[in-house]
């Protein structure tokens, strides 16, 4: 009898301990995305993807036996709100790391907050200012615009085209692109013969295109996000321009082909590999991650995963790896993040270092062309 009681006690104690282990508090991760407002085309897939990744990780047993909890707030693309919400994540929710925000402006605004609170931030926006100069607590997953520019210029050089006209949108994406287009031109022996901008809400770009036509460039490079570039594609077709048209990675989703219709035919753009995942050779390191992401996204949301969602996928997976290796403290995660090497994600193969918190090379981009309403690789 005594033995029975003691076994019962022992098993009860064991049971209690095991439930205590099971009930270990989840690791809190913050997320800031512009789910509403003008940048919602970035924020929504990012939010969906981040939630999806967390659900999948938890379903598979969490990270080192502990579940993750994702706390997402919507910045609406407003810098003031982003700062307030970053404060909320850090002070009230006490998260160990933050992913997002979606736009460069929001990211620049929250950097002082995370630097002071010493919480790692993995931004999903592309602006080069975010990681140059390197900030101790700030990383990013979206490819630098420089890499996309370099990819286009490389192709032009190969085809011996040297005179280009650039047409950029007057928002943070466009102005960053314009800066890089001008900065890199010399290096590739490219001459910019015409430099124009258009407003994010403009509905007719014929005047700019007419001006460009008279400058007789070998190629036009347009830098913007939907719907502007689609309007430009249509206008160019109406004007009968026979000049090759290059777009930025800002429109690398099926949505652009839908918006531009027939006018999209023949347009080229640098893109993350997610668009052409199934066309990639088996030797490509990213292929596994890409196909997994596309399949999961299809299962969860019955929609095609795009490379914006991919930024959030990369951020979450980098974070997961960092927690596995560095523990659940902000400092541990930061150090482990910085030590990440050769992580094949959606945006490219990431290798962070103390001097590089962007972690990608120009191989992150492939050049694609629109043919018959679908993408093909440009060789």
């Amino acid at each position, binding site marked *: 009898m005594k033995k029975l009681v003691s076994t019962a006690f022992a098993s009860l104690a064991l049971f209690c301990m095991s439930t205590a282990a099971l009930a270990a508090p989840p690791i809190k991760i913050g997320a800031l995305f512009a789910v509403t407002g003008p940048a919602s085309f970035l924020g929504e897939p990012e939010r969906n993807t981040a939630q999806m990744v967390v659900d999948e990780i938890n379903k598979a047993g969490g990270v080192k036996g502990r579940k993750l909890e994702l706390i997402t707030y919507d910045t609406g693309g407003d*810098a003031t709100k982003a700062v307030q919400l970053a404060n*909320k994540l850090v002070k009230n929710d006490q998260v160990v790391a933050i992913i997002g925000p979606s736009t460069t402006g929001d990211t620049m605004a929250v950097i002082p907050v995370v630097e002071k609170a010493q919480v790692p931030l993995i931004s999903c926006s592309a602006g080069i200012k975010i990681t140059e100069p390197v900030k101790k607590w700030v990383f990013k997953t979206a490819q630098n615009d420089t890499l996309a520019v370099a990819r286009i210029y490389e192709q032009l050089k190969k085809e011996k085209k040297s005179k280009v006209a650039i047409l950029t949108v007057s928002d943070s994406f466009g102005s960053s692109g314009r800066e890089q287009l001008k900065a890199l031109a010399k290096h590739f022996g490219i001459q910019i013969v015409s430099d124009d901008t258009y407003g994010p809400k403009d509905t007719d770009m014929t005047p700019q295109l007419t001006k460009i036509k008279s400058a007789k460039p070998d190629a036009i490079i347009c830098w913007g996000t939907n719907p502007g570039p689609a309007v430009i594609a249509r206008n160019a077709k109406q004007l009968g321009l026979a000049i090759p048209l290059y777009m930025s990675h800002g429109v690398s989703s099926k949505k652009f082909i839908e918006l531009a219709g027939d006018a999209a035919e023949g347009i080229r753009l640098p893109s993350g590999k997610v668009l052409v995942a199934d066309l990639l050779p088996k030797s490509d390191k990213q292929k596994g991650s890409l196909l997994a992401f596309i399949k999961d996204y299809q299962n969860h949301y019955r929609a095609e995963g795009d490379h914006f969602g991919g930024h959030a996928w990369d951020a979450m997976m980098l974070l997961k790896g960092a927690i596995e290796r560095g523990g659940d403290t902000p400092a541990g995660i930061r150090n482990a993040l910085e030590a990440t090497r050769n992580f094949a994600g959606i945006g490219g193969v990431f290798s962070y270092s103390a001097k590089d918190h962007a972690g990608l090379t120009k191989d992150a981009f492939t050049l694609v062309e629109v043919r018959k309403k679908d993408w093909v690789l440009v060789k």
Partner: protein
Amino acid sequence: MRSDRIKFIVFALVVLLLPLPLSGGYLTNVLIFVGINGVLALGLNLLLGYAGQISLGQAAFFGLGAYGSGVLTTQFGFNPWVAMVVVALSVAVFAFALGFPVLRLKGHYLAMATLGVGVIANIAFNETVDLTGGPSGLSGIPNLAIGTLTFDSDLKNYYLVWCFALGMILLSLNLVNSRFGRALRAIHDSEVAARVMGVNARLMKVQVFTLSAVMSAIMGSLYCHVMTFISPTSFGFSFSVEILTMVVIGGLGSVYGSILGALLLTLLPEMLRTFQDYDIIVYGLLLVTMTIYMPGGLVEGIPALFRLIMPTKKGTEVGNA
């Protein structure tokens, strides 16, 4: 008059003691923005609620203050306090010069003209990339400092912003109860009658327009030093409309109403986060309900609500007896 003074002292005490139970948490941060938005709403209320002149370009003056201070301190190495004074004075001159032609207009035309000013300012912030950093914003703005005291925490910034705010509230309270304030209300009721009575309506409208612009600009300077980063999206047309909403929801022609409106509109989205994706719908519904059932704004609506509840209680008691 004495009750006004007591009201202000009570209000100031509440403001000064409020952060203590919050112990530097996230709400302190939100309350900094309540202070900034409150003064912006107050500035517009002086113009709209008292003098009856609408402006849809308040965000432009706020932005001029922010960008003025931001650019002068980061690009030209000005001391932040000097920059603030320089910017406030320049905005005063600019608003005064602008006021004369613009305020000749009335009603919708005035709304359109001020809206135009707002849009032009926003385009200027966006396009002067070399100076303002353009759409990707201006970073690295220093915090304000007095001697060795640097305003680098939420709590310090809270007291900094609210000291300015309390000063401007006191100024506005004195102003609206002065001869000037009475003349403004006369202009609001009938500009012709006011002129007949010897009020220089044209000059006074420009003066109050300038005052509201300067108040906004000073808040802009504070905003940029609190945030240490600014981008044009914070100073767009939608923000002008938000300030207008604060004034209308708070109560036209009420100093405290502006602060109440700013408090509600800044805190409400935070409280509604529990609704997640539906927060915008709830937010909209609440605003619509308030404008329908509290046309005088919160300052009149809340006491009215109170009276509505109290007598019914008494009524039922009487009925029972």
